[in-house]
């Protein structure tokens, strides 16, 4: 093997032609069967690109139809009246609600999910860790509407105590003041979203932590590090990009979550400073709640708001890919 690769200067006649041939074979231009098969598989790849382009094009087309007739400012109006003439609607409330609820969800879910992942890989007794991972895998598959039903009928009534306590001690900040309404607010949505994205973030982080190089960990242990120091110095740095990508996956799901938010939130079209008082809305929730009563123009307006959601999720996903790609280059622990 070594000899043939080094002797390219004085070649036996074979290397050049085989390379060309393998290239041709890779293109599948030799036999009709190959050509058909390559055409099919390449065609389905191209179909995916076409669908993506079509999504962008058609959403933009319908959205411009709606926005061109919008009497208010599409970005800043605090109103969603599409059934009247002239129609007035804007996405300010939705954008705020989507961002706030996702931030709350991330703040709650990421530390807990990372802890659970560490628990499964480094703390739990081995007999426990297997079944628990399995159960968390299954929980990731629970449909969001079931989370929504559970959130609306079980979680909401149980949050009165927490909300009262937050109001008592942190009400002065304004963010946690509460007027004793049903706890169907942004914070509730955030908590429910956190519970929903927990299994996904945990799953991905767990896989990453499991791959952390054992040599580094044993070296740290041999130097007298405690278990926490091992994790802080060798496992977490190795897993950082994985945790980031896991969080971005969770964030993507939180941003686009529809039914769970629609069942739990009692929406209105105002921006509330308090996270505890009911009100506000998110893009996806607004689409689901307003769709039933919307006429054709109203549907176009909803499509316009969906387009914004689409762009936001694209940006989040793109950012995640960039971060991962960059971290990969610097991560020394690829072995």
């Amino acid at each position, binding site marked *: 093997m070594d000899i043939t690769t080094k002797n390219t200067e004085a070649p036996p006649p074979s290397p050049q032609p085989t390379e060309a041939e393998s290239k041709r*074979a890779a293109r599948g231009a030799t036999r009709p069967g190959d050509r058909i098969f390559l055409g099919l*598989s390449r065609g389905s790849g191209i179909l995916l690109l076409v669908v*993506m382009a079509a999504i962008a094009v058609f*959403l933009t*087309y319908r959205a411009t139809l709606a926005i061109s007739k919008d009497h208010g400012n599409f970005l800043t109006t605090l109103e969603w009246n599409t059934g009247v003439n002239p129609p007035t609607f804007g996405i300010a409330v939705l954008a705020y609600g989507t961002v706030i609820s996702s931030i709350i969800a991330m703040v709650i879910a990421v530390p807990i999910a990372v802890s659970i992942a560490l628990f499964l890989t480094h*703390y739990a007794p081995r007999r426990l860790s297997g079944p628990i991972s399995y159960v968390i895998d299954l929980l990731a*598959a629970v449909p969001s509407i079931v989370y929504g039903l559970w959130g609306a009928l079980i979680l909401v009534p149980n949050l009165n105590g927490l909300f009262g306590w937050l109001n008592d001690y942190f009400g002065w900040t304004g963010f946690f003041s509460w007027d004793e309404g049903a706890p169907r607010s942004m914070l509730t949505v955030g908590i429910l979203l956190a519970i929903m994205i*927990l299994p996904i973030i945990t799953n991905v982080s767990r896989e990453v932590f499991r791959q952390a190089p054992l040599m580094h960990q044993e070296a740290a242990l041999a130097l007298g590090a405690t278990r926490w120091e091992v994790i802080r110095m060798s496992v977490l740095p190795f897993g950082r990009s994985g945790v980031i990508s896991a969080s971005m996956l969770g964030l993507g799901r939180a941003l686009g979550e529809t039914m769970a938010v629609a069942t739990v939130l009692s929406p209105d079209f105002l921006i509330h400073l308090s996270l505890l008082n009911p009100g506000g809305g998110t893009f996806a929730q607004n689409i689901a709640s307003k769709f039933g009563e919307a006429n054709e123009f109203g549907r176009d307006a909803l499509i316009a708001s969906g387009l914004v959601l*689409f762009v936001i999720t694209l940006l989040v996903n793109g950012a995640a*890919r960039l971060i991962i790609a960059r971290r990969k280059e610097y991560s020394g622990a690829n072995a």
Partner: protein
Amino acid sequence: MSHAAVTEERPSTLRGASLPVWSPWAIAAGSVVVAVLLGLVAGIDSRVQWGLIAGLLFLAGTYGIAAKVEGRRQAKDRIATSLVWVAFLLAVVPLVSLVWTTVARGVKVLDLYFLTHSMGIVADSQPGGGIYHAIIGSLEQVGLATLMAAPIGVLTAIYLVEYGRGGLARAVTFFVDVMTGIPSVVAGLFILSLMLIFEMEPFGFAGSLALAILMVPVVVRSTEEMLKLVPNELREASLALGVPKWRTILKVVLPTSIGGITTGIMLAIARIAGETAPVLLLVFGNRFINNNPFEGAQQSLPLYIYQQYANSAGANAAYDRAWAASLTLIAFVMILNLLARGIARWKAPKSGR
């Protein structure tokens, strides 16, 4: 003081003093007792607050005692350990509650009658009725979506792994990643925009199209991983015997990885079976049985749950039906998951050597 007494107190100079193994349990028990006492004295009646106080006491106690006996580094280690345990227990509570309530409330009305009757003559606020129409709708929509998405997904993955070099493959990889992140409601809106242009009424197949868009990237990703696991020696052996590449893929590569591919497809089915938003926008829901996915509104299980919850104005009968439908849906998804994992284990590709 004799030398022997000193060594008895400190068995090894290398390890330093350490707390006994049972100390975390003791501290936990102590903090729970103190928290309960505090709660009783201060008149706090919320169990959650008792738990929180106990947790804080436990953390503080652990840190204090360990720092005194074992030193700061060990104390930090113990804090990290207990935080990780606390996080785990904290997360278990809602997840267990979710599964428990679904099962406990779901079995109330779940019986053969419920599975074989529709909501045709039953008002939402009355007891009775069932999910037969929703099951039919779900099976047809998800089935059609799978028929579209599975071949496209597998072929795309074959293209990426077996043929793909250069710009097109990179673009496809990138956009598969992007498609994975599309919210389900946006996929629904896309098909809706087409339906608005062609002035169509809601029907089952429109939902299938949106579900297929959501399913394809999942299938591509998992199939890609599986194809990459097929040892190159197998491909080379087949090609060296003069077998054309397409036959190599069909007869060698795919059979080797078929278990994993099936698993991926089943997991993707499990994912789209629970999607509500696109179905809400495109299939609209129906109280009656509609067996034809190509004409007229249909029902589907997730949408049925939502409508029972949202349109019933708090009637208990409707909530019972919603829970029972949730249990059916979860059971369906879980069985698919378990089957998929079983197949994965049974048909796992044998490693190269």
